[in-house]
């Protein structure tokens, strides 16, 4: 049934998988970090600066260990993560609704654009004072600020993603008789996933920044509060190694989320499908 020439096409090339690149790049980065760490330790030991302002790196690790054992830093981290996760989840829900409305109803598109242009440049922390009045002190205000700062990058990326869907893929979907709902569900959403993931990444990063900053401006009532509040309190008592330990915790969480959660998510989806723009 098949022509003889069909045999030939099996030799056509398929993309090779590159594995060593990541591990060698990682090794190089770790090497650099070790050198920077060693330099820090050497400068601190040289006694040029007062140890209260510039502690040894080793003391920072000792403090981190002590805080982990004592349990406070973990509780604070958990509190921050809870706030940010909830904030990002709310922001994503609102953003999807906004993008869907903008897509479904043309006049709303310009409304969303207008809000985006006006409110996107406003840092979340700038609205904290007024949010404290509206939502009350402590957790609710910080949560509201996190939601506010996450929504705009998310909405912007969702809309950009929807606009970037290749015309031919939309036509191919319409050719199959897909209506608006099925076209959105089966074509527009998967096709704009790279942008949605980029938006989620950005939202998460902004959420962290805003939450930590917000907790410092106004920590929390009673025994509550996140990593920002932790750092602020330790600085108040001049426990500088513990201040650095708090920062180290933020870095560790950041790396974990970036490489483990977002990295895995990307490898399972857009990288596997060859849709990633950063490959």
């Amino acid at each position, binding site marked *: *049934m*098949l*022509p003889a*020439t*069909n045999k030939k*096409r*099996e030799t*056509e*090339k*398929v*993309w090779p998988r590159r594995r060593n690149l990541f591990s060698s790049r990682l090794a190089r980065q770790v090497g650099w970090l070790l050198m920077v760490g060693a330099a820090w330790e050497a400068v601190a030991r040289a006694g040029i600066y007062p140890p209260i302002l510039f502690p040894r790196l080793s003391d920072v690790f000792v403090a981190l260990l002590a805080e982990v054992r004592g349990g406070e830093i973990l509780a604070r981290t958990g509190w921050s993560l809870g706030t940010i996760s909830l904030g990002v989840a709310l922001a994503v829900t609102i953003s999807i609704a906004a993008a869907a409305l903008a897509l479904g109803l043309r006049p709303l598109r310009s409304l969303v654009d207008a809000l985006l242009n006006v409110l996107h440049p406003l840092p979340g922390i700038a609205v904290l004072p007024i949010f404290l009045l509206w939502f009350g002190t402590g957790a609710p205000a910080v949560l509201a600020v996190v939601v506010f700062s996450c929504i705009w990058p998310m909405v912007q990326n969702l809309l950009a993603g929807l606009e970037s869907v*290749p015309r*031919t*893929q939309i*036509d*191919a979907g*319409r*050719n*199959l*008789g*897909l209506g608006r709902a*099925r076209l959105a569900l*089966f*074509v527009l959403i*998967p*096709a704009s*996933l790279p942008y949605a993931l980029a938006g989620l990444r950005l939202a998460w990063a902004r959420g962290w920044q805003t939450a930590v900053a917000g907790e410092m401006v106004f920590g929390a009532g009673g025994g509550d509060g996140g990593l920002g509040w932790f750092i602020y309190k330790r600085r108040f008592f001049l426990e500088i190694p513990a201040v650095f330990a708090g920062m180290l915790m933020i870095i560790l969480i950041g790396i974990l989320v970036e490489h483990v959660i977002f990295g895995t998510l990307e490898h399972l*989806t857009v990288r*596997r*499908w*060859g*849709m990633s723009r950063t490959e």
Partner: protein
Amino acid sequence: MGMLPDYQQAKKTTPLLVVNSLHKRFPAPGSGGDLTVLAEVELAVHRGEFLSIIGRSGCGKTTLLRCIAGFEKPSRGSLRIEGREITGPGIDRMMVFQDTEQLFPWLTVLGNVEFALQAARVPRRERRARAVHFLEMVGLERFLDYYPHQLSGGMKQRVAIARALSVRPRMLLMDEPFAALDAMTRSLLQQELLQLWQQTKATIIFVTHNIQEAIIQSDRILVLRPLLPAGSTGSRDPAFIRAAGGGAGPVLNPGLGSMAALIDNPLPRPRQPDMPGFGVIWRQLHRLIGLEVGTRAGLVAQPVAEPAAQPVAEAAPVST
């Protein structure tokens, strides 16, 4: 071993597709006026026919195909498939695009075809076997689990053809599907498409700007020309009409419409560029398209010197 196209018999029955007095205008950017891309297109396509649409870029080939596909609404006139007015896209007219991005990158080769079958409401149990069957027809049975980005351009177009054929459309609409491919892959895919056409008895409308491709593949060739600017006397000029209709040359459409000519291609299949009669049609099309210096698309015709296999041209290609 019927090598003669079935459409010769089908011609006696009602046509599959009838295009009546089709005009298509788009709003012209800036000026506020309209830009007419297609005018006075009259066409009847029969079951099993392989029709090519050829012409210079910008003469409305793709627009005509997109009107048939239902992506564009006609500004005037009508398009009917099996007597029903075409109101929008549908799986009875499957399009294969030039763009290799037409596959869904998040679905595998098999997934892309199965998705089409799902959209066509084929029962779940039958989908897989049918998808595999059509992918075997294009020789991709070993690549079922590959993602589109792992395939070459030619393989992607094969998947697109398999996906389009799998829903058993009334007609296959192909918009320069091989234009982005290298010459060797292109020629290979042309041969395969002809085999698929004969196996499936599909009706194909194929847009191309490649004269040789059009002659090798099609039963009939529709030559489109760019429309003259509004207000120009153009072909109404008696001299033009005399030149167009005079002598022993092909009879052209002297009107103002988009159709320069609709010619039959009687060459026996399989066709090669060096076979007798090929050159005659090639030169005729070359001239009709307006590729010769000093001519205007389809308006000035020189008599054809060779007496061999003179194709019949139709001035008013409306089927009766």
